[in-house]
């Protein structure tokens, strides 16, 4: 066997929620038996954006906020890969918000794990777009990625997990990976993943999460209903988790994808195009 890099030990502070995310992702990939060589994890910039170094797969460190376009490019170019985008709430909801909206709309077959800690961990604790989740007044100022996803009608998979509820998280990640790998499209999983150093939200979220998976009235195939359910929970000052929405049209996956198309013996086809310019 050719030797290659040794996966790194996480560089996170002890207790960081991102450990939980990594563990769950690891389990989900194992459960689905995805080979590391077929897995490409692309990460944003942030503490969260180091997860790709630790799992022994192909790993890529994108620019801050650009993990989704990069992952989309990779997924479209080689649909045989299991493409996973990962990053923080700063990365995905602040600088990356436009791409998130357009990735919902474009619905490429990839999984996105957004580790929401309501702060910018790596740059030392500035407010992220979800920071207001934590303040008592003005909670509506917090951006909510799930509501955003619901508002884009082409979205097909929206879920939220909590780093401290690993069982559900693994389940959601397995479902997300299956959704993407089976070609249904973009699977978005936000994970509440506390930053113990700058914004320790464990106690808050322990108390506040409301599991819609447990709610018999919640129908994850009803977009307007899911929107209403989430709003209702949020208006109570709580955070909805679980599989929020699954549905929509299937993704268009190019097959076999440019990474596997042949390049030889095409001169005749090229000539046909060129001849179109003959005068």
């Amino acid at each position, binding site marked *: 066997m050719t030797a290659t*890099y040794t996966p790194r030990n996480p560089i996170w502070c002890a207790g960081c929620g991102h450990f939980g995310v990594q563990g769950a992702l690891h389990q989900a990939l194992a459960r689905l038996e995805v080979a590391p060589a077929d897995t490409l994890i692309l990460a944003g910039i942030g503490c969260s954006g180091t997860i790709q170094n630790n799992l022994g797969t192909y790993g890529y*460190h994108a620019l801050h906020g650009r993990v989704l376009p990069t992952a989309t*490019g990779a997924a479209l170019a080689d649909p045989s890969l299991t493409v996973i985008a990962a990053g923080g709430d700063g990365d995905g909801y602040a600088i990356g918000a*436009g791409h998130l909206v357009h990735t919902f709309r474009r619905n490429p077959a990839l999984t996105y794990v957004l580790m929401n800690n309501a702060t910018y961990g790596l740059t030392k604790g500035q407010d992220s777009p979800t920071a207001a989740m934590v303040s008592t007044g003005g909670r509506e100022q917090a951006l909510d990625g799930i509501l955003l996803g619901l508002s884009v009608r082409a979205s097909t998979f929206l879920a939220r997990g909590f780093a401290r509820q690993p069982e559900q998280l693994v389940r959601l990640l397995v479902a997300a990976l299956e959704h993407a790998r089976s070609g249904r499209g973009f699977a978005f999983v936000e994970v509440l993943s506390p930053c113990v150093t700058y914004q320790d939200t464990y106690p808050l979220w322990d108390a506040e999460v409301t599991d819609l998976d447990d709610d018999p009235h919640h129908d994850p195939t009803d977009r307007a209903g899911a929107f209403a359910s989430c709003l209702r929970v949020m208006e109570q000052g709580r955070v909805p988790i679980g599989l929020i929405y699954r549905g929509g049209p299937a993704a268009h996956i190019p097959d076999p994808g440019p*990474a596997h198309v042949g390049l030889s013996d095409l001169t005749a086809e090229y000539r046909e195009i060129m001849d179109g310019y003959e*005068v």
Partner: protein
Amino acid sequence: MTVADTRTLDDLTVAVSGQGGDGSLTVTTLAARILSARGFHMYSARSVASRIKGGHAAAILRGSRADRGGLDDDIDLLVAFDDEAVERIGPAMAPNGIVVFDASAGPVPSGHLSEDVQVFAVPFARLAVRDLRRDLYKNSLAFGVLTRVLSVGDAEAEACMDEGFARLPALLRQANRAALRRGFAFADEQGMLDGEGPWRLAAFDVAPRLMISGNEALALGFLVAGGRFFTGYPITPASEILAWMERHLPRFGGVVVQAEDELAAVNMAIGAALTGVRAMTATSGPGLSLMQEGVSHAGSAEIPLVIVDCQRAGPSTGMPTKPEQSDLSMLAHGGNGEFPRIVLSPGDPTDCYEMAIAAVAISRRLQCPVYIALDQAVAQHSATVAPFDLDVAVEQGSVLDAAALAELAEYRRYLITPDGVSPWVVPGTPGGMSLVTGNERNEWGQVSIDPANRTAMIAKRARKIARAIDTLPLGRRWGDPGAAVGLLGVGLEVAPMREAVERLAAAGIAVAALQPRTLWPVLPETVAFVNERRVTHVVEHNDEGQVFHMLAEAGAPAGSMIGMRRSDGLVFTPGEIVDRVLAEARR
């Protein structure tokens, strides 16, 4: 206009001008068919304001016995649909030129045409509306008068229009033919009978040729080079590349994405390139500014990527439909930090085709970003060129497959090598797992701030260019290699420069011309060109002298270079270049 005998032309420039929506382009496109049938080389240019209706627009067509690839000094035949056309283009008319003027709104405005210009005043629009119920038909009417001026037979003109409009609905075709005949009738009234106009066109034998724009040729080159992933965001004058890709790439298993913005475009291309696919994106100045972070990233993470910049006049939104070469400094120096990059610079459609192929191959071989710098004129103007050589071998470059990987004891994505290029295994290859990052990293791709590693990595990246410099595309040359006077320019300067060299030679003045096709890094041959001459005119479309300064930075003596610059949105004519060379020579 060169006149073979008293009335037969073998170098003719026709301009058709009016408000943006007037279909000036239709008239020159039809005229091109006439010239093409006679074996003329052709060059077609346009000048439109960046808005749909109401902007002043001109379509210009030059046909010539020699392959010119650019405009002449002046206009021989002007079809003017409004006063503004006469005001703007009148001063550029050739001696004894002809103006066909739309007199619907009044007589030709005075003071813009010299005495010797002959005017045919025709109320095109009025006739079109009165007799055919639509203003638009004035174009076909004008084409009728134009063919009469050139003594093209009515039958040929009609056949030409039928072919040109073959895709239009039958009703429209008929209406246009009626308009054409109305044009003939008007010419009859003026005594300009079928086949007996003031001018006559020469005819030559020619091999089959393409009529193609730089954008189209570049797109084809990318495809032929194995390019299979393209991302773009609409922007003038690069949008045609996106449209071309949407039309042709999918058939070859390729993917085209119209991104939500240029940030997405460049990063999607990077993501695709990561999987081993040959990827490209194209934009213009504002978009290129937005892509700078991505290009720096590709340079750092060592990702092959081709970025096309169809330059337009800046700064900021500038003059979107006008040519300029004012992003060159950004291409060479933009982006945060230092990273290897190459700037190729084609001067005509053939060159665009070839440089696209070269860019794909180089980016793949060196694992770094390669720019192709066009300008609006090279990008959008069409010219006749010989068919392209389609027999292009697509190399694997530095990518290892599973078998090659198995030969290695250890795979390090960023292995430090003598030529700076590391082995590369794409995702999906068993055992080739690697880390790719824009942070400084060790050979395994793991983030590192170790000073010794850092120094080695900077040197490795710099070596990629230094070691490859002899393999980068060389320039094209014209004129007398031993001449003491040089002309040096890229892009839209190439055609007038070439023609100026010929004219100067005819006048007994030896000049050598160089078009560097690798603009950055500046090649030794480029510096040598300047060193070998008493004086080199560096011709460029910008105010600060960006090419000039690149050459100086690379060691060309500033004292022996003279800047020949403009940035007013207009091109240099061959005559202007001749005049400036002569003026310097006389000093």
